Each structure stands twice: as C-alpha cells, then as structure tokens.
C-alpha cells in the first residue's frame, strides 16, 4: 500500500517536472519596449497603443510606465545600465544630453517621407526636429510661450484685449491697471502671473531684451550683459516696481486657473486641457509682447519620441513612432488638449472651436520662438546654478546685477570644469 503510494507520488512529481520543462510556445512577434512618462493623457495614449497593435499584429509593445518627474533619471539609469528602452520620449530640450543614445532616423524618414508627409508639420515644428539636417525624433505635441489672458477680468476693467503688437510697456501698463486692490490694500486680482522655479519666463525676457544665456559656442554664460540684465530687471520689477505680479508665496496657488490673474506670461500649452475644464474661466491667447530688441523671446519645445541607438527592433520601433506622429495620433492628441503639430489637424473644425480661439497667435508665437541652448548641460546649469540666484533676486531683494553676476560666475566655473565630461 505504502509502496504503491510512493510510486504514484514519484510519477506525479515526474509528470509535473516534465510539464514544467516543456518549452513555452515561441512568441515570434517583434518586442518593442516603450518607456512612457505617466501623465493624465494615459488613457488616450493607451488607446492609441491598442490601435497600433491591432494594425501591427506582428509587433508586441511593452509599455513601461514611469512617473513623469522620475522619467529623466529612469532613462539615464537604463542607458547607463546598457538597457535603454527601444522607444522613449525625447524632446528638443532633453536631446542635447540624450544625443549619444538616440538613433539617427534620417534614412527612415527619407524612405517613408511620403507616408509621413513632412510638409504637413508646421514649419517651426519641422525646424525644431531637424538638427543639423538630421532627424532623431518625431513630435506629438509642443509647448510655445504665449500671453494668456482672462477675458472677464479685461472686460471688467474696461481694457482692450492684448494684441500681437504689444510691447513690454503695453504689457506692464495694462498689468498695473488690471491689478485691483480691496480698500485695505489686499490684492483682489493681479495684472499678471510670474513664472518662478524654472527659466520659462526670465529667459524669455532676457531674449526679449536682446540678451542670451550663452555665447554662440556655449563656452561662457552671458547673463551679465547689459541686455540680459535689462530682461532680468523687467522680470523683478513686475513684483517690486510695477507691482502687478505677486511675490513668491503670494497670489492664488492655482495661478491663472484661479480666475484672479488677468494675464499669464509664457505659460504652458500643457495647461490648456485644465483651463478648458473650468467653466467660468474665459481665456484666450496672444503672441508675447515684443521686448526692446524686437524679439518676443519665447521658446518652442517639442514633446517627441525617439529610438535608442542600440535597439534590436529598429524597424518595429520606427513603425510605432511613425504611427504616434501620424495624423490619427496627432488628432487624438489635439482632441485631448494639446496644440496640433500638423497643419491638417489644425485645419479641422473641432480644433478651431476649442479654446484658445486665437489660433493665429499660436502661429505667430511659433514663428518667433527661439530654441533652447543646444548644450548638454543647459538644464543643469539653468536649474541648479542660475535658478537659485534668480530665486534670491525675487525673494529678498537682491539686485539683478548681483544675481546675474553670481549666476554667470557659477555657470562659467561649471563650464570650465565640467565641459569635457559630456559627449557634445
């Protein structure tokens, strides 16, 4: 009895072992890994991915979702570990750093030029993703600096809406008039927001005044030139001299969404979808006012997808990014709330009806926008070395000259010491 039990148990173990050793049915599909930064657009992106997989049954797309604020660190870690994802989000701001790992797609673009229809992209968008006559990524959306305005607050104040001919002084004067105070002096509504914590506004103003962040060969910082100083001074004066923007920590934390700011300088097109969801926020856009140099100074930055140089699935990855920059995908992105990178989508009736209504301003802004510096260390220098001095300037009254001098000294010192560390 006992022997029979043992024999049966042994047989069972052998059967389980044999079944366990049976090879899995081989997946012959092309396996593409896409590193996706989690945003509120996830359902829309996942819908597009499902549709892509239905169109390409031979491609299996593995989506690795990473929180948006950890995306850059994650991608650099994977690259450092020698395991870059096949497809990743790579805009023109991050491209200078990622350049050594991003595949040149120029040959594929030439091959599939007709299908991609390059002429359909807005010219400014095309210029942004064409780097030294090479193409490394294809776009889904873009941000461009704009002047946002609250129509209700303008009307209540009897102000005329901004125009594309505005200068800085028009903007400042309107801002002062639109700043409304209660009898006790407490501000009820501000003339304008002020963008703090990153370069979005102050670098735009530096450009508008005729200055630049770096010299042309990116070997020295030029934030201490008289032109750059003029831009930084205007930025600071919005709070302390003209008094139409709140100091850091003041004003509604939800900014332009709060219906208590008449204008937003620069802003971000990524906010459009949230603006549209606020029923009593009547808003529109205009091109940024021109600075004393005649430049508007805003930036145009792309949200795009690139392919890793080391990918083993170049063709399958290419099919995916081509799809994600195709007309169907761009229409989905535009319907979700992003500005369209393709003219054919921008010409669709739904696009014209969605706020902002002044789409002409978008084109003016795109044409006058300036690229961010083509330097691998730009983001680090801007955020870690220059921004703290700008914060000091806004918070404790440090004169712009001192802030610019200290920022320039830090950046120059960094460039001299670290410049050889990066592949350029």
């Amino acid at each position, binding site marked *: 009895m006992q022997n029979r039990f043992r024999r049966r148990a042994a047989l069972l173990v052998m059967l389980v072992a044999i079944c366990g050793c049976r090879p899995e049915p081989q997946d012959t599909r092309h396996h593409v890994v896409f590193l996706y930064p989690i945003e509120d657009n996830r359902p829309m992106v996942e819908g597009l991915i499902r549709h892509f997989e239905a169109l390409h049954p031979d491609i299996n797309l593995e989506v690795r979702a990473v929180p948006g604020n950890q995306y850059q660190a994650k991608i650099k870690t994977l*690259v450092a570990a020698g395991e870059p994802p096949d497809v990743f989000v790579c805009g023109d701001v991050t491209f200078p750093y990622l350049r050594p790992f991003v595949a040149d797609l120029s040959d594929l673009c030439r091959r599939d030029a007709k299908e991609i229809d390059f002429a359909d992209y807005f010219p400014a968008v095309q210029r942004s993703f064409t780097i030294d006559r090479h193409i490394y990524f294809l776009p889904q959306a873009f941000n461009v600096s704009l002047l946002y305005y609250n129509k209700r607050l303008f009307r209540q104040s009897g102000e005329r809406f901004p125009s594309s001919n505005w200068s800085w002084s028009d903007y400042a004067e309107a801002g002062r008039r639109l700043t409304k105070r209660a009898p006790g002096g407490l501000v009820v509504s501000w003339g304008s927001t002020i963008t703090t914590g990153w370069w979005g506004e102050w670098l735009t103003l530096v450009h508008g005044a005729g200055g630049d962040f770096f010299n042309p060969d990116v070997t020295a910082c030029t934030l201490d030139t008289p032109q750059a100083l003029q831009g930084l001074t205007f930025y600071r004066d919005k709070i302390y001299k003209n008094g139409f923007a709140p100091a*850091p920590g*003041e004003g509604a*934390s939800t900014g332009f969404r709060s219906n208590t700011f008449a204008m937003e300088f620069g802003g971000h097109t990524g906010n459009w979808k949230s603006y549209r969801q606020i029923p009593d926020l009547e808003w529109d856009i205009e091109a940024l006012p021109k600075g004393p140099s005649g430049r508007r100074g805003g930036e145009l930055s792309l949200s795009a997808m690139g392919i890793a140089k080391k990918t083993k699935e170049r063709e399958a990855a290419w099919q995916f990014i081509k799809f994600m920059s195709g007309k169907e995908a761009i229409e989905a992105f535009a319907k979700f709330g992003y500005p369209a990178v393709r003219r054919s989508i921008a010409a669709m009736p739904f696009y014209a009806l969605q706020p902002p209504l002044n789409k002409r301003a978008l084109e003016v802004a795109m044409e006058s926008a300036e690229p961010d510096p083509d330097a691998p260390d730009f983001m680090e220098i801007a955020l*870690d070395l220059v921004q703290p001095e700008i914060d000091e300037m806004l*918070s404790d009254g440090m004169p712009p000259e001192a802030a610019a001098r200290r920022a320039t000294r830090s950046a120059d010192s*960094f460039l001299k*010491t670290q410049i050889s560390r*990066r592949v350029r």
Partner: protein
Amino acid sequence: MKKSQVRWCWAMILPVVIGLAIFTYGPMFASLLLSFTNDDAVNTPSYVGMANYKYLLTADPSFWVSVKVTGVFAAASVSLGLVASLSVALILNQDIPFRGIFRTLYYFPTILPATASGVLWAFIFQPQDGLLNGLLRKVGVGHPPAWTDSPQWALPALIIMSIWGFGGAMVVFLAGLQNTDKSLQEAASLDGATSWKKFWVITWPAITPLVFFNLTMSLIGSLKAFDQAFAFGTSGPGVGGPARATLFYVLNLYEKAFGHFHMGLAAAMAWILFAAIAALTGVNFALSKRWVKGSGI
C-alpha cells in the same frame, strides 16, 4: 580553542564576511576609486586626480551652501529635538491620567515614513492655501510667512517638521527615567530639594549616557537627512527649495548622482561626508568623557 573549533568558527562567519566584502566594502572601495574619475555613468570614466574634490571645495556654488544648510538643520533639529524629547519624557514619567495614550500619540509620528510626513507637512506649510497660514490669517496675521516658497522660512519649516519625530528619543529617555533610583528622589524630597535641584543633581547625571546616545544618533541622522527634504521639495517648490534653502548635503549628493549623473562628483561628496561624520563622532566621543557620568543607567 581547538583548531577544529576555530575552523568551524571561520566557516560559520565566512558567509557574513564574504557578504560584507562584496556588498559593503567592495562598493565603498569602488566609490572611493570613482571619486577620482569623471564618471557620468554613460561614457568611459577617466582618472581626474583630485579635480572632483577641488571643484567641490573651491568652485561648486551648491557645495558649501548645502554644508551650511545641513549644519544649521543639524544644530537646530538635534538641540530642539533633544530638549523636546527629554521634556516630554519627564512629563510622561509622572503619574498623569491617560499616560499610555499620550506615550502612544507622541511616539506615533516616528513610525510614519518620512516621505509621507514630508508630503503632509508640505501641505501644512503651503503658503497660499496651507493649513498653518490659514490659521495664522484667521488670528489676524495679514502677511504670514511664505514658508516653502521663501528662502528665509523654508529651512525653519523643515526644522519644525523634524522635531515632530522626537518620539524615538523620547522612548529611550523614558526607559532610562523609569530605571533611575527612586529612593534618591524620595530622600531629596524629604530634604526639601526643589524639582529643578532633583533633576539637575539626581536625574541628569543618571541619564547622561542616554543623552549622549540620543545626541550621537540624531546628529548622524540629521547630517544624513534626505527623505523629508526630498518629499518636501517634490511636493512644493522643487528639489532643494527656493534659492537652495533646503538643499541638504545628501540631497545635493543625490541630485548630482541621479539628477545629473555626475557619479565621480557624487562619490567625492559621499567620502567628504563620511570623513566629516567620522570626525564629528570622534569629537563627540572625546568630549563625552567630560560630561557623561558612568556607562549607563
């Protein structure tokens, strides 16, 4: 000990020794080597001698700022934390109603992850819509501090937040206080000694080893502070706070390593911190001979 016993001893501790060598001392040694290179985790590193150390000590605008921020934080949070934990331990050592509940309540924040409490405190200190400024406005403070958005107030906010977690030190003090000789206290009371006199002459000498223990541990902990500032920054004004006001040393190191992949620089920072903590702990031990009475309760 017999030879065979020695062999067995070695055989037993060998896995731990191998584990330590491979997973602790190996990476430590590797990081020391790394600190003399320009490793950026991507390109092949090359030897740069003392350049990383020189850059940090003489040119990096954030290095000395983060040293200062960490120093101020350590001095304030350690001293205030010790005073708070000892004071509460002395009160909770008395025969008061609901003593058990109070002990649990005061210890409770210690078991919360620092990241979670960082997010919670970021909400409390949020300048426009935060809980604290809401209360301050209600009691008539027209312009309350901008806390997380202000270079002047961001660090004090973090110090206040750190004191919240004094429960661990409090439990150590409480354990020590419960083991002090009660007969001495009773004798002193009979002789008419005041509460302060009894504390200073009887209780304090008895708990100095615990003060030393808590001082050493919280000093090391505060010099390595990271998670609360990281959570604070990512929930509010950005990593390092406005104008680097909350750029702790380890946060700066993390940003250099995993924000910008300056692995060589980060490794150099780690070794400077190691040397500083070792030196401070040594000084602490040397000075303890002057004021710590006995070796324990």
